[in-house]
């Protein structure tokens, strides 16, 4: 699985039309003689047979030495490691926020199944689920940054501000509000829908009827018997979203010019920066695979019924 995914990461950039030549050589590529062009290509190792490039790609993965970005002349590990914390800050915060809200709303909706609250929240969630990320992000920028001037519209910190300590933390938090808000709001529906469905199916179980028959208060039944069980499948949803957390922020990071991994990938793809494309694809691949692994191994621990 991993081998196939990693190989695809190598192939995809090269299958795309366009060449990184202009990127490596600079914009004066049209001014160069054929020899100069060849020298540039050779320098970047792009004249080697694909098999050789492929092998050296594996070598770079196994040794964790990804080489230099065509564009920036910077070691790629540095580029990636610089970006990872910012992406994690956005996605983990959004995961927690959307998880808590989605679970609460989903459980409540199922409890009041068919009621006014259930129907209206379901409609809102379905509408939200089909809302494009960039649209909501731009709406927030127009509202909270341009019109109201409350929050910064871009970046992870204030450029050139040289803040330290608490002031820096406050700055980071302020910059994270809009992207996290956008990301959270748009992640709620998935959690909500899965929680609502799973709560509904638990509510139909015999032991719930037993609990109700014992004369327990509905609230107690709900919290102690229903929600705990209903959470199980939702954990899987959340674990899988954790994997997507690395890749799912491309749009948000672009809209908010946020220096995370998604932005790095987006810029690398636009410029055909092969090494950076490979490295970011690899990070996403591994994150998704790990998340799957996590979900698979977590579930039996939480739910002994599925243990073999």
């Amino acid at each position: 699985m991993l081998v196939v995914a990693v190989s695809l990461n190598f192939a995809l950039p090269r299958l795309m039309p366009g060449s990184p030549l202009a990127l490596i050589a600079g914009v004066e590529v049209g001014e160069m003689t054929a020899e100069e062009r060849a020298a540039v290509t050779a320098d970047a190792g792009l004249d080697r047979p694909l098999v050789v490039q492929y092998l050296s790609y594996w070598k770079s993965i196994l040794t964790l030495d990804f080489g230099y970005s065509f564009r920036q002349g910077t070691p790629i590990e540095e580029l990636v490691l610089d970006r990872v914390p910012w992406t994690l800050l956005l996605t983990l915060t959004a995961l927690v926020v959307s998880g808590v809200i989605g679970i609460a709303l989903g459980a409540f909706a199922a409890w009041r199944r068919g009621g006014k609250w259930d129907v209206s929240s379901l409609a809102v969630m379905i509408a939200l689920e089909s809302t494009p990320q960039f649209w909501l992000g731009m709406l927030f920028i127009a509202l909270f940054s341009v019109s109201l001037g409350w929050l910064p519209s871009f970046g992870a910190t204030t450029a050139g501000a040289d803040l330290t300590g608490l002031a820096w933390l406050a700055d980071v938090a302020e910059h994270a509000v809009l992207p996290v808000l956008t990301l959270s709001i748009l992640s709620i529906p998935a959690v909500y829908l899965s929680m609502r469905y799973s709560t509904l199916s638990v509510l139909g179980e015999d032991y719930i009827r037993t609990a109700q028959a014992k004369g327990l208060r509905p609230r107690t039944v709900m919290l102690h018997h229903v929600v705990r069980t209903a959470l199980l499948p939702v954990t899987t949803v959340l674990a899988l979203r954790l994997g997507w957390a690395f890749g799912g922020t491309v749009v948000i990071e672009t809209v908010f010019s946020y220096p995370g991994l998604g932005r790095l990938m987006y810029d690398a793809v636009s410029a055909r920066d092969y090494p950076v494309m490979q490295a970011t694809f690899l990070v996403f691949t591994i994150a998704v695979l790990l998340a799957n692994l996590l979900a698979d191994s977590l579930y039996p621990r939480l739910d002994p019924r599925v243990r073999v």
Partner: protein
Amino acid sequence: MFHRRISRAGAPVAALVAVLALGACGSGDGGGGGGGAEDAGPAGGASTAESLRIGIMSEEGNLTPHTYATGFPGLNLTMLSYDSLMQVDENGQPQPWLAETVEGSADGLTYTLSLADGVSWHDGEPLTAEDVVFSVDYYKAGPPGRFATAMGNVTQAVAQDESTVVLTLATPDPSFEIRVLADVPVLAEHIWSGIADPDVAPFDESTNVGSGPYRLVESDPGVSYSFEANPEYFRGEPKVDELVVVQFADEAGATAALRSGEIDTMMRSISPEQIDVLRGTGTLDVVEAPEYTTTLLVFNTAVAPFDQAEFRRAVGLAVDRQRLVDDVFLGAAVVGNAGWVHPDSPWYDESVETVHDPEQAAGLLDDLGLTDSDSDGIRELDGAPLSFELLVASNNALRMRLAELIGEQLGEVGIGVEVSSVEMQTLDDAVWPGYDVTQGRNYDLAMWGWSAASQADIGQMASLVATDPALGNLNVTGYSDPETDALAAQLDTELDPAAREGVADQLQQRIAEEAPFVSLLHPNGAYGYNPSVFGDWVSITGTGPMTKLSFIPDDGQP
């Protein structure tokens, strides 16, 4: 002793999202330019500032002469920290700069430069003739690139004394001053002699030493840069103390930040409909002026009937350029000239007429035997419909609209056009594979454009039309005509300014006649800014206000 002019391609290049592209380069690059004070939009505001925050939209890497990424704004930012021997002035003409005097020999093979007094590097070391000699040798020995190419014609650099350098050329180059002297940054020998691999030079205390008005003090590629003014600058203390450059992913983000007051200006020409919007805010203004950046309709002259000049001319006649300017650019563009040269250029030949005449176009097509025999509105060529695919970069909304309008206009004279929007890289690959015209081309019709530098140096006109790929290195239409070739070769070598002007005029007339491409229009540069922070812009004709000239005091201007 010939005249200063012009530089080969390069400079302000485009780029939307993309770093790439001397070629298909996207929307408004280059600069909005000063094309004459009478054209310049209202510009003004604070003439000094403590700090100016500038938005950019492309990833730039480390800002050294060896590692910057794009021509515009990358090189313009890099040149804040560096200087060249000459510097173009507001009119786009090279003037003495680090070199106080520049003397060319009569045969055009030797240049004697004497350096200005009292110029020092950011670390306090004096800038000497040895640094200039070192720079020449270092670029020549280093990896290929803009400056290595520029130095290709310099065979020898000798320091006669502390402040005098003599450069020897292999062949005379009438554009040497603008193309090389006013372009190549001088490097500090005591810094760069220790750097063996300039391509991966990191940002640190040693690589950020230049002689320019600003010193780069913080570099976080992909995120932001900080420049501090160099109070000892030899042309006077810069007008703004600190420049903070912030990178955005797209224009929408930067425009929002400009409107919310988070940045003060941006190094990207805004789209035409934004001009009035920004001015309408009451707090922002726009510095607007014609620029040399070109927008072209190019065709593959190997594909029949584009191999016939009459047919190409008919296409040019069928296109209503003024309507394109009015409808798509809301008037914020200058109509392209059939002879290629921008009307604001000193080289512009007024006798070249640009006409819109669909009837004449239809007549030319009839004469070529291209008639509509099945009355479906589209003419036929050897029985097959006269229909072509028009490629346009999908990241450029304005060009997509242009393409649609052009499709309609050509349809009116019976030429079928199907617009295909493709990714910019894909377009580059079709029109200019490998950025090397000898690799051929794989398209019928395409929307294309060259940077402002393609007009700033009149010598560049030859590279668009010459058959020989060494001279015609930008000839993406594969056009070939002996008479044009003769004129192009002359333009490339004629040292006498008056004679060269005559050649340039003749070549413009020839281009208008032969129509190797259709020059549609030149989008005006339009840069939003906050006048209460800073607004004392200095525009260079055709290339705009986003250069270091805007930050150099009046008495220090070239």
